[in-house]
């Protein structure tokens, strides 16, 4: 079991309120991602759940039990840190064994669990090495191993992939997702990378300035962002926002359209915008074209096919799928 409930949780550092009253329920077995720009309070929120920071007011419940004033070690949670936080003076085996040893488990049981974790994480050959002799990816595996062996109520991940290179990150992302499918344990994962959030989460919590902007499945957030902040944060490349006359005609202050919902079309065939091509980013599978000179939105990003023939300075005509246009009022709230 691992149902986590936050009730009116607040956090202040001195006079600075980093988390205004916040309510959130994380169901047992869910993979929840806290996402937001740096400084949005996502790591603080995770640390509050972990017990590494004290809440200023409010309650935290794990499986119905109030753990607000219980120390981290008694909450039954395991945490994986961005910097791995391995014990540098201990071998991989001792690192993984550490929480078990602290719990007073007998050595035979310890070894069974270490072997199982090492096999699952491909660490069998490295058990006698020190963390300093391992690569970044291997270190993060050890950190995950140290978390798994405890069989925790929930896993907490604090930007675990940020220190890895891009290729490794994609691999580890898959491994963590697979681990979740297998273990079915609650996982809370903090990241600033919306791609990680979209690919891994059952439920995404978008945070800004300590406030929950929206909670929902990745596709809910993509399809129906509650406000311009969520709309701009979820999706890559970013949604195009258009102010001014064009938005006014559709009864909104600002309209938003994702790059994949804008097409290049011949002149006079339903074109809405006209502009000049700036940079075209060829990714092979796709081309991201940055179009300048459009009123109220400069530049507008367009996602086109991989083989599109386009050059810097070309004039292009763009149309949008009207049913995919998001409308926002002057305060950024969604207008339906």
């Amino acid at each position, binding site marked *: 079991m691992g149902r986590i409930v936050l009730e009116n949780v607040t956090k202040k550092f001195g006079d600075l309120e980093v988390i205004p009253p916040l309510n959130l329920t994380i169901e047992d077995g869910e993979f929840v991602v806290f996402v937001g720009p740096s400084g949005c309070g996502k790591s603080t929120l995770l640390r509050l759940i972990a017990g*590494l920071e004290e809440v200023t007011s409010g309650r935290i419940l794990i499986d119905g039990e109030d753990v607000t004033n219980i120390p981290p070690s008694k909450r039954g949670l395991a945490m994986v840190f961005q910097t791995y*936080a391995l014990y540098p003076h201990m071998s991989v085996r001792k690192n993984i064994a550490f929480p078990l040893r602290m719990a007073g488990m007998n050595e035979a049981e310890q070894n069974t669990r270490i072997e199982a974790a090492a096999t699952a994480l491909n660490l069998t050959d490295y058990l006698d090495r020190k963390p300093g002799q391992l690569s970044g990816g291997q270190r993060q595996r050890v950190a995950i191993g140290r978390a798994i062996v405890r069989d925790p109520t929930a896993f907490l991940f604090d930007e675990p992939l940020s220190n890895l290179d891009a290729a490794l990150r994609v691999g580890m992302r898959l491994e963590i997702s697979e681990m979740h499918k297998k273990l079915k344990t609650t996982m809370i994962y903090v990241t600033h990378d919306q791609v990680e959030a979209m690919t891994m989460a059952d439920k995404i919590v978008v945070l800004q300035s300590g406030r929950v902007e929206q909670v929902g499945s990745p596709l809910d957030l993509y399809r129906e962002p509650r406000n311009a902040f969520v709309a701009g944060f979820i999706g890559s490349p970013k949604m195009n926002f258009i102010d001014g006359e064009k938005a006014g005609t559709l009864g909104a202050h600002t309209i938003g359209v994702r790059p994949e919902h804008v097409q290049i079309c011949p002149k006079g065939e339903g074109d809405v915008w006209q502009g000049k091509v700036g940079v075209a980013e060829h990714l092979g599978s796709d081309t991201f074209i940055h179009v300048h000179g459009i009123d109220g939105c400069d530049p507008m990003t367009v996602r086109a096919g991989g083989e599109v023939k386009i050059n810097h300075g070309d004039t292009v005509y763009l149309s949008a799928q009207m049913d995919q246009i998001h409308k926002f009022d002057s305060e950024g709230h969604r207008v339906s």
Partner: protein
Amino acid sequence: MAIVAETNRFSKTSRTVLAWLVGLLFFFPIFWMILTSFKTDAVAVKPEFLFSFTPTLDNYINMTENYDYWRFAANSVITSVFATIFTLVVGIPSAYAMAFNPSRRTKDVLMWMLSTKMLPAAAVLYPMTFLTKNFLGIFDTHFLLILVLSLINLPIVVWMLFTYFKEIPREIIEAGKMDGVSTWGEVREILIPLAWGGIASTALLCFIFCWNEAYWTVRLTTTEAATLSKLIEGNRAPEGLFFGRLSAVSAAAVGPIIVLGWFCQKQLVQGLTFGAVK
């Protein structure tokens, strides 16, 4: 390129020469003291016999036979060792608390601790002597010296340990908390192994400071707890200056610490640079 290389070679040579000159200048008094300790008192005061003299061990024999050198040395060892242990026992938890659970006042506390070092020792000489002698009855005891030496060195020891502990990533301690370690476990299992180098160099420096301390060890003792500093002081006083004898006593007092320092050079440098080279 060629000009740069020439300049470097020149500056390297001149720096080496300068370093040797400064080194010799600093070492000369010790060298002179060791030479003098092998001279008779009569020869010692005459400059023409600086290098040409017949060496004698009389001063050393006299020192061990008539001045009870070993008792003074034992007192120095006892007070320095126990003061160092006591300082670390108090200093490690203090520095740990300030490094990993700082409050808004932590910096002020650290500054305040350091500020206690600014009090001139002479200012409290009278109350210290009077109170320990007439009130507490601990004058001239090991206990008093250990207490005084510990308290004198505590601020610098806490500062040094604090600096070392600050270098340990906070997440490692937090990982320990998540893994179910007690506070004492954190110190024993994580902090001490990780900061071992820093703790060792701090302990070494503290020991040296205790060994060398002369102001209080001379004034708060008579015979029972008197250390080597007192022995040197005692040889100066009654019959005027006897260079040969005094030099032998001094050499025997600084000898152990020089040998210790020699063997622990690396640790000492690390300690004195407050971990900056790590």
